[in-house]
């Protein structure tokens, strides 16, 4: 049966190549969407894990007043964590952030940086409530919160997920059709041979197993090619993306993650190839008893 599979595969190499390339293209686009989706998810998680409200305090704020405000926020039950960042700590954070740019460090002292309270709310709905609660306080100089950024990112991720699933579904459907057409042609070419084999007492699996193998082979080859291209595309775009995502620890993507992507693509490709071949066999086997 394996010998038959090899024999039939190389009987029409251009048809095989066409099927493999279409599956490769589909799986490549699917893996690109997947990687972008995972990237957005990572960015969202990064923003969600950071304190989302920063309350800048006036220089004259006493430690007693700061403690009172901190207790008020904690007591509201809407915040997971409230951390006081003194002027000195703010300076050390600033130094760490710009350690590679000495020019930006020269003129900055602890005096010019404000002390602040960094608040991590329980969820996005609490951001608005906490902001309303502290807005009128006399020791509050300014407020910074990322509610809109996170909401927009969440919306974008959801849209991307839906569009990605739609496009992936369409591409997979096209791939299944291509395998169905290629293997359907193969079965049509072999119609007489299949008829003879049936009359000689060949079991269905003896006749059709090489075709199922061929479908799976197309899928696996498509998965390997698409993964190779995805890996190269990510590898060469990493330096650019790193500058773009300054401070967000997403890149470089680990090799283990890419191996998991490869496994996923192989499973998806095999499924597409097998489904295409099953449909081709089902379509043809109706003609010969």
């Amino acid at each position, binding site marked *: 049966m394996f010998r038959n599979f090899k024999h039939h595969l190389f009987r029409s190499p251009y048809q095989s190549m066409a099927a493999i390339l279409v599956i490769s293209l589909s799986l490549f686009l699917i893996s690109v969407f997947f990687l972008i989706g995972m990237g957005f998810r990572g960015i969202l998680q990064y923003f969600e894990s950071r304190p989302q409200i920063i309350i800048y305090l006036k220089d004259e704020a006493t430690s007693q007043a700061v403690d009172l405000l901190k207790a008020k926020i904690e007591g509201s039950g809407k915040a997971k964590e409230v951390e006081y960042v003194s002027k000195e700590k703010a300076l050390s954070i600033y130094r760490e952030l710009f350690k590679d740019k000495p020019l930006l460090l020269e003129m900055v002292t602890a005096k010019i940086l404000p002390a602040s309270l960094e608040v991590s709310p329980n969820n996005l709905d609490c951001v608005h409530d906490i902001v309303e609660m502290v807005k009128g306080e006399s020791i509050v100089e300014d407020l910074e919160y990322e509610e809109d950024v996170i909401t927009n990112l969440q919306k974008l991720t959801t849209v991307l997920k839906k569009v990605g699933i739609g496009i992936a579904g369409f591409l997979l459907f096209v791939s299944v059709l291509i395998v169905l057409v290629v293997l359907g042609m193969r079965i049509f070419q072999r119609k*007489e*041979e299949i*008829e*003879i*084999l*049936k*009359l*000689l*007492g*060949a*079991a*269905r699996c*003896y006749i059709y197993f090489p075709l199922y193998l061929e479908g799976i082979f197309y899928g696996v080859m498509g998965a390997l090619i698409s993964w190779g291209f995805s890996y190269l595309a990510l590898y060469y775009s990493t330096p650019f993306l790193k500058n773009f995502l300054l401070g967000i620890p997403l890149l470089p993507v680990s090799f283990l993650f890419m191996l998991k992507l490869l496994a996923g693509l192989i499973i998806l490709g095999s499924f597409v190839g097998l489904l295409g071949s099953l449909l081709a066999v089902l379509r043809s086997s109706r003609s010969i*008893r």
Partner: protein
Amino acid sequence: MIQFEKVTKKFGSIVALKEVSFEIKKGEFVFLTGPSGAGKTTVIRLLLGEYLPSSGEIRVGEDKINKIPSRKLFLYRRKIGVVFQDYKLLEDKTVEENVALPLEIRNLSNREIKEKVKEILEQVGLTQRSHLFPAQLAGGELQRTCLARAIITEPEILLADEPTGNLDPKTSLEMIKLFKKVNEKGTTILMATHNREIVDSLKTRVIELEKGEIIRDEKEGKYHCKSNNSSREADKNV
């Protein structure tokens, strides 16, 4: 061994067989004769399970063909050898590969296949032709390849649909000798034929069909007693 009981086969409004009944015992050699369109090939195809009868019952050994589900048909077909007028050999396989096919299908080991193929090719006199492709063979050699493929599994029943239809008289008689040898080993043979000479030479059972009905069933029959003159003329030309 083979039993047809009031078998009718219709293709739309055309009646190919009409309430045909006969029984063939184990080890018999039976000729199925009759003019074109009489229903000979339909009988063979019904026995192969290619068609299902419209009514009636067909038994082969323990099997009722009507009752065999499609997915198990291959097991039934493995009990039968078949020789076709148009040979039905695979063009991209050599003589020995074609002959080996039924054994490959049964998952025999390469060693067993090689031994059996060698033995059977010797029997049909094709040892020297074993590496040739069908396109490189003469009609008689093609038919001997087809016979070798049919008997390599030592089936209990051998069906032959016009096996000498494309052969000259001398080659036809040689083929019939081979069939006779197979029959002498105990294989039941049902052969549909137009060939007067071979039917007359064997003096064995003859079932004659006309318009889908049995018009004659003789134990030691000769070719064609009751058909019309025009078909006699056609047979003379074979």
